[in-house]
């Protein structure tokens, strides 16, 4: 189904995603870390394209890169004195943290290698938006409605939390 070039591009993107994620957790400049996160999110959108999830790839770019990343950048800019020029952040407990996450990683790798996942090529799935839309207003309509109410509550709550209280 996929040519050699497509496979090569996949592994290049995978390396890019992991390198960006590494910078997000290790880099000392917060603004640079936010932009590395943009690269990681775009790479994940490329994975979705490879997996035949075209609607999710679009949603990933729109919501993560367009929405969440902008929010995070606002967070970085508003909670640091901008005239510091370099917005830096430190790290603590590097050794225990590396040990714990390394253990989690080793466990996951062991499980992935040990289990027979019964994966099969299900063929070209075609455009995903139609089955996705049918599922959202069919089998998963309750989850869909709860998610919409959750979004409303969360955004109202966020607006209330940052509001400046007059008098106090």
């Amino acid at each position, binding site marked *: 189904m996929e040519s050699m070039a497509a496979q090569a591009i996949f592994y290049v993107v995978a390396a890019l995603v*992991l390198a960006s994620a590494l910078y997000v957790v290790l880099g000392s400049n917060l603004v640079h870390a936010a932009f590395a996160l943009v690269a990681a999110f775009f790479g994940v959108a490329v994975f979705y394209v490879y997996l035949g999830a075209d609607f*999710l790839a679009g949603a990933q770019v729109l919501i993560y890169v367009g929405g969440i990343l902008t929010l995070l950048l606002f*967070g*970085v800019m508003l909670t640091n004195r901008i005239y510091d020029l370099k917005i830096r952040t430190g790290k603590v407990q590097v050794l225990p943290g590396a040990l714990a996450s390394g253990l989690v990683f080793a466990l996951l790798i062991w499980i992935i290698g040990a289990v027979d996942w019964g994966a*099969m090529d299900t063929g070209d799935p075609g455009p995903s938006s139609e089955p996705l839309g049918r599922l959202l207003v069919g089998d998963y309509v309750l989850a869909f409605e709860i998610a919409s109410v959750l979004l409303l509550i969360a955004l109202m709550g966020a607006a209330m*939390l940052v509001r400046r209280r007059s008098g106090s």
Partner: protein
Amino acid sequence: MIPLEHYLYIAAALFALGVFGVLTRRNAVSVLMSIELIFNSANINLVAFSRYVEGAVGGQVFALLVIVVAACEAAVALAIVMSLYRLLKEVNIDRASELRG
């Protein structure tokens, strides 16, 4: 066709990096970024399984709901970070110990 395991390995690496970031970073916004990495690794797994298992488009619905929850989480968490910044004039999460008994 890229084998399913390769997606799982990439997601596992992203998850481990996110956990490392949550454990070692002390800036609240950095911790949020690491949590977004963890969300993304879970999403890669969900979409990969929905692709490699017959008739499991539901995995993509779950991934969509995870994206919704991530958006809610980012909005509320950044609101809390802003309140914390107004209170302490910094966003070091080790200093946010007002509720300590």
